[in-house]
């Protein structure tokens, strides 16, 4: 797609329920970084009971929520949005799911005596363990490809706070490798999930303000741009990224 005519269409799932860790910051990063470059930006929301348009967005976003809200959304996701989300992913739309949203990407989330269903978009399961919540600053390393730069090793830094332990199915790729922090389950050194343009992660903080490069990667990928995005003055973004890495102990 040509940059000057492009509009990034974002659909946030459950924007008033799944927003606990300042997920708004992620959406704001996408919006501003599009507009500063003359790209259009359109934000839509799909709440409880709403149907999801599988062709309606270039990027689908699911944030984190409290247990009670997550449970409401899990049931609704399976009933009203699962098939559309599968269709969107199949046509190459970006799906970015953070924290509670990441958990809902998988088959199930077992907590206490009950099990929440998931979208089944990737082969992973989450279990609420008896141990302490996994909380703290976190940094991960990932190899990420772009059609302009080839594959590069990059760092994402953020904050994690989750009671669930997520386990990837056989052959499923994580988003990255844990450098500092707990990651998916505090045991296997893996963080998040990556299946094509479907991305799940426990990194909030929020994620994109601390990792402006990743916001740009998402924009370019979602819009399938033919040329690299114009550079911006990222002095503050770079400082914030450096502080987040430092907070994680890198």
């Amino acid at each position: 797609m040509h940059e000057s005519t492009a509009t990034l269409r974002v659909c946030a799932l459950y924007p008033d329920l799944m927003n606990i860790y300042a997920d708004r910051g992620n959406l704001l990063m996408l919006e501003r970084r599009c507009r500063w470059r003359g790209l259009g930006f359109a934000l839509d929301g799909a709440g409880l009971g709403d149907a999801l348009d599988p062709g309606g967005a270039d990027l689908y976003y699911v944030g984190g929520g409290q247990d009670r809200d997550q449970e409401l959304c899990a049931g609704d996701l399976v009933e009203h949005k699962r098939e559309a989300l599968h269709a969107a992913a199949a046509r190459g739309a970006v799906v970015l799911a953070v924290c509670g949203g990441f958990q809902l990407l998988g088959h199930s989330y077992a907590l206490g005596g009950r099990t929440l269903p998931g979208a089944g978009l990737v082969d992973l399961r989450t279990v609420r363990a008896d141990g302490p919540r996994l909380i703290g600053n976190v940094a991960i390393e990932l190899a990420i490809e772009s059609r302009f730069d080839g594959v590069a090793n990059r760092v994402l830094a953020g904050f994690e706070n989750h009671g669930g332990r997520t386990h990837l199915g056989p052959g499923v790729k994580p988003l990255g490798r844990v450098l500092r922090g707990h990651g998916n389950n505090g045991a296997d050194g893996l963080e998040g999930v990556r299946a094509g343009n479907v991305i799940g992660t426990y990194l909030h903080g929020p994620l994109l303000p601390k990792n402006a490069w990743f916001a740009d990667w998402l924009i370019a990928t979602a819009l399938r741009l033919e040329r690299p995005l114009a550079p911006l003055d990222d002095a503050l973004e770079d400082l914030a990224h450096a502080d987040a890495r430092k907070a994680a102990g890198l």
Partner: protein
Amino acid sequence: MTALDAKIVAARTVGTLVRRAGRGGGTSLPGKLLIALEPRAIGELAARLPDGCAVISATNGKTTTAAMVASILARSGHRLVHNRAGANMAGGIASTLLASARRGGRIDGDLGLFEVDEFWLARVIDELHPRAVLLSNLFRDQLDRYGELETIADRWAGVAAALPAASRLVLCADDPLIADLGRSAAAEVSYFGVEDPAVALPAMQHAADSKHCRRCGAAYRYESIYVGHLGSYHCPSCGQRRPEPSIRAEAVVLEGVASATFTLVMPAGSRRVRLPLPGLYNVYNALGAAALGLALGARLDAIAAGLEAVSAAFGRAERIMVGDVELSILLIKNPAGANEILRTLALEPGSLDLLALLNDRTADGRDVSWVWDADFELVASKVSSAVCSGTRAAELALRLKYAGVPVRRLRVVPEPAQALDAALAGTAGGRLFALPTYTALLALREELAERGHAPGWWAP
């Protein structure tokens, strides 16, 4: 000398040594030591108070509300034992009691007034056996430390249900999470709330919590929203609705960062009150203080006079002259609280010079996500300069940039003393607004004290 007296002397000696060594306030250390020596120290010392004690908890406004209650009760002739510096976990409460304890099983004061951290409420109430408890609000706050809001609400429900019938429970009618605590209480319950649609928000703010009925899970319908999720609401599904408050604020007039005026309506009559603290959030604090004062036997005249005479609690809308610049210090610590500060600043005429300090230490919350939930957009177009400081200074500058403040108006100066200098030098209009998180507030206050502009924060 009793066994407890000996432990008190030991704990107090350590506190004195720490303070002399210049290790900051040392506010809660003697109390922690006393608890280590005598695990039931809080209960034993509180039992010495002839008129018992009262407890205040909330996510936002604890320290200011307690200062208001203290001002009311001082006019009712009470001598208080009060953790006024805001050290509100077990160690801080034990320290306060320790400082007032006298030999021979006596205590210097007749009534205890304690603000208590929301996480410690159950434990501390078990020991204090308060005669009155004020619970004001629950907002999203420091998720890394406190966990989810619903978890705290569940704990508090246990606390409220366990209060004996002879005690008083004072609740905010406008916060559905709080109001619901009155449902199964044995204690005598009174409610307070705002009734003035003219000061309601046009829509629910982004970071609002508790939008769903505590009883049945359906979405509340709001007739008015005043602060965050505080307002007039009902559940269309199960019929739960805001209880009718017997202590109310009507005809509210907000006057920038200086003051707020409202009509205080109580069962005994009403008074026009000019509160020397700003914002609708302080009107809520004043209502809670009035309702608790009433539950403790204060009369309407003492309540109104006490509210009008209150001075800003430490770092809460406190104003200090620094040379020829008037510095207003407004603590920010979570989205709901920060939004009320920002809403108040937006009412100020002219442009704003800011000194914003974001730390990520344990007492601030290590997770700085919340600054992205706070509505800095409310003031973005008014900011003429903002110096950002603290351990996460760049993150805060970034937040302001994405809220719409031009980058040329932003500076990142992580070290607080240098940031203060930079902000004072860049202040055009003779007024500077400092927005620190909790530990940044301590650092800023210490720096101001060293420069001779403010007393040390541990001063009584």
